[in-house]
């Protein structure tokens, strides 16, 4: 008959799994765009505000729908420099 893991062994296994998973999330080296890999993000085409007329139009739609103006949008693109 196949043995069933005891409760402490199961708890240890789950704890190790949680440690490995959450530990991986805290590492800055995993799944992160490195500073030298941001050429595409810094490209002009990545700037959502590159077309002033389209920006004004979308802002108009936004504040008409939300009954609020301003308070959104950031400058620059995505190079993350500095």
């Amino acid at each position, binding site marked *: 008959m196949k043995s069933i893991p005891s409760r402490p*062994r199961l708890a240890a*296994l789950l704890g190790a799994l949680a440690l*490995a998973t959450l*530990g991986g999330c805290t590492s800055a*080296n995993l799944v992160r765009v490195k500073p*030298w890999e941001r*050429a595409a993000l810094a490209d002009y085409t990545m700037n959502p505000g590159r077309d002033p007329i389209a920006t004004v139009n979308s802002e108009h739609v936004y504040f008409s729908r939300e009954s609020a103006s301003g308070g959104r949008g950031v400058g620059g693109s995505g190079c993350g*420099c*500095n």
Partner: protein
Amino acid sequence: MSPPTKFILSAGLILGSAAAFATVKTGDPFPALAAAGLTGTLPDTAGRVVLVDFWASWCAPCKASFPAYSKLQADYAPRGLVIVAVSIDENPAAYERFVQNLHPPFATVHDRAQQLVRQVNVPTMPTCYLLGHDGKVRFVHQGFHGADSDRELRKEIDTLLAEPANPS
């Protein structure tokens, strides 16, 4: 070996391999520039105080830093400072266009394969490393913040240049 023990050892191995992506920091020897596969002419840096700057043509603060480095070159090169600006551009044309436009008075080289920048694991763009006479990193400056960066760099360069080249 019990299954939980095997699992814990495996998790440790994975986390350990992630930590092996080491960052060059203050006190560490800087990787040899001559062995980094850089394109361009490297100046003689042996026994000199060296400022190694990592930049890219698409990085606005990098562009802003070049006039300041030009002034550092004018002020400190006669006293022994060597500035090496390492481009990490993947596009060689962008690198060449940037250099042709700005005509920096210091050495510029190209890390096209991004070998050195990976090895050093720079934390942000731009980042510059000040190396002492012994080739070890003495100061790391992240980003470029105008007059504040200039003041900090001058203070550190003055300190390093005042040190004896061959302490015995």
